[in-house]
């Protein structure tokens, strides 16, 4: 079954250029979204061994609840952004859509493989596609930002490759489940884990390596920066979680992760207040949200992991909503500077509504989904140590502060711009869909939990994953 989806996706990427049609890419992504949604509700863990070789020798894709959960998020966000960017990208549209389709293949590959080197290849595919997409506008700012992103990104993925080479040296296999059996958790594996996490922390924007995000976001076209901060960072976080829990099977409270998460949260929050450029502000808020996720995951307790995954789920939705709605404002006014914008609320009620939902959601206001996950995080961290919870609450207050500032600057106040063009339909529909989803999950968090619960016990029961993969082999 998955072969059909895969071949459709790969073919779409190659044929969009040959046949000069954009619809192929969009329909392929939407088709794979529907497939992953259906595949999610099949009971057992589906396994697919490529070209028939059993797991330790060939590559195997494991469609467990966590991987499919990420795949649904990825294809959903990609299809919405693809629809959004129909009007946004005016010139060279076919090349843009091929790159978007290749980016989807990379992201799906990361979330579903059961083989570490295959994950590295798709991680590299995702990075190369995003380097080209960031430099797409070819103006002064975006080339410089793309270069900075490229050099740091490829340096970090080389560190990831060093980690994988060492894992092969120590365990002799490349299959994640097979490797999990052979890893004994000795000091050597801590070093290898440190290296791999060092490589991955850049792509998931943890503090010492978060500097590329605020430079890249203003330079990239809005749909790309929406993807960048929601899905690419999300897949970086997913890879870290997958490697820590499934491969290394570390269940104990991971103090290093908690400390990193705390610093990321605080630094992201503080830096965001001082920003003048709206996109840099949103980028720093992504950094602080990632800090939240890592605090919860670092807990190691089932409650902590559920809270972290739920916050990852919400963060992807909210960040994409924020960036896409700000993209429309940018499309109209053309400036990103806070003090130049003003008084757009009356002219663009829908955009104001969606941006408001996104802003209040990330800040964690009760009716919206951000609050549900943050509340779980507070509960999870409360058991371990109340200091962390208090810091988390302070930072979410700071997030509320700078989001209110942004909201009031853009939408209230004297209107400086007269809006000439009418916002095209294809740009409005994705935001409204996202806003509705955020509200629904906010009011009924059980829906979100229904997705997140099975994903966490996939993570926690490492044994179930191993005998599912190797049991067949």
């Amino acid at each position: 079954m998955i072969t059909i989806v895969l071949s459709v996706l790969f073919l779409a990427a190659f044929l969009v250029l040959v046949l000069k049609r954009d619809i192929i890419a969009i329909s392929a992504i939407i088709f794979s979204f529907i497939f992953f949604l259906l595949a999610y509700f099949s009971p057992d863990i589906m396994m697919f061994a490529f070209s028939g070789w059993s797991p330790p020798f060939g590559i195997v894709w494991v469609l467990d609840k966590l991987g499919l959960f990420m795949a649904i998020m990825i294809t959903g966000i990609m299809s919405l952004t693809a629809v959004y960017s129909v009007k946004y990208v005016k010139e060279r549209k076919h090349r843009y859509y091929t790159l978007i389709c290749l980016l989807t293949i990379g992201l799906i590959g990361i979330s579903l493989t059961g083989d570490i080197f295959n994950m590295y290849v798709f991680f590299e595919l995702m990075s190369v596609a995003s380097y080209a997409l960031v430099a797409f506008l070819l103006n002064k700012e975006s080339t410089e930002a793309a270069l900075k992103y490229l050099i740091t990104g490829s340096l970090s993925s080389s560190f990831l490759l060093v980690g994988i080479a060492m894992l092969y040296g120590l365990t002799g296999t490349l299959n994640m489940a097979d490797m999990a059996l052979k890893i004994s958790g000795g000091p050597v594996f801590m070093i290898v884990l440190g290296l791999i996490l060092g490589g991955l922390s850049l792509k998931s924007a943890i503090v010492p390596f978060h500097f590329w995000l605020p430079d890249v976001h203003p330079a990239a076209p809005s749909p790309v920066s929406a993807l960048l901060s929601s899905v690419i960072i999300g897949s970086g976080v997913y890879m870290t979680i997958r490697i820590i829990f499934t491969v290394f099977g570390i269940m104990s409270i991971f103090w290093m992760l908690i400390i990193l998460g705390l610093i990321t949260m605080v630094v992201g929050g503080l830096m965001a207040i001082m920003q003048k450029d709206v996109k840099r502000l949103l980028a720093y808020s992504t950094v602080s949200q990632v800090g939240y996720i890592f605090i919860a995951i670092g807990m190691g307790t089932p409650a902590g992991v559920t809270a972290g995954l739920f916050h990852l789920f919400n963060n992807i939705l909210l960040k994409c909503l924020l960036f896409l709605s700000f993209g429309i404002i940018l499309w109209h006014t053309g400036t990103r500077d806070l003090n130049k914008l003003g008084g757009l609320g009356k002219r663009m009620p829908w955009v104001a509504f969606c941006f408001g939902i996104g802003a209040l959601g990330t800040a964690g206001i009760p009716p919206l989904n951000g609050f549900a996950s943050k509340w779980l995080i507070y509960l999870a961290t409360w058991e371990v140590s109340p200091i962390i919870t208090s810091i988390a609450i302070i930072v979410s207050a700071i997030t509320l502060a700078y989001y209110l500032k942004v909201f009031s600057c853009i939408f209230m106040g004297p209107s400086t711009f007269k809006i000439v063009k009418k916002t095209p339909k294809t740009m409005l529909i994705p935001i409204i869909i996202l806003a509705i989803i955020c509200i629904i999950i906010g009011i009924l968090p059980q829906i979100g939990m229904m997705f997140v619960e099975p994903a966490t016990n996939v993570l926690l029961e490492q044994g179930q994953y191993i005998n599912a993969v190797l049991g067949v082999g």
Partner: protein
Amino acid sequence: MIMIELYLTSGLMMMLGVYCVAMKPNLIKKIIGLAIFTDAIHLLLITIGSRENGIPPIITPENVNTFSQFSVDPVPQALVLTSIVISLSITALALCIAIIAYRHFKTLDTEKMSDLRG
């Protein structure tokens, strides 16, 4: 054990590559530093798969039966093949963006680039 020197050289090359990327302001030198770093990893991968007086993993009519005792481990060689292609594509893309950046900034010095960005 012959492999200790190879591990040391690959470690040194990695240090050289990271130093070059981190410290050199010129853009082309940074890209060269990246290439050095990825080649160091390829050397590391091959030494992981190496073996005392091992022979290349090609089965020829003569060494069909003695092949399995002496052959070098083929799996890292397959990984190196893939990662060479990946590092080629990254370097090609980096050079292309560097050309376009040079056309905008008239300089390849990253410090000047970031203040010129304005």
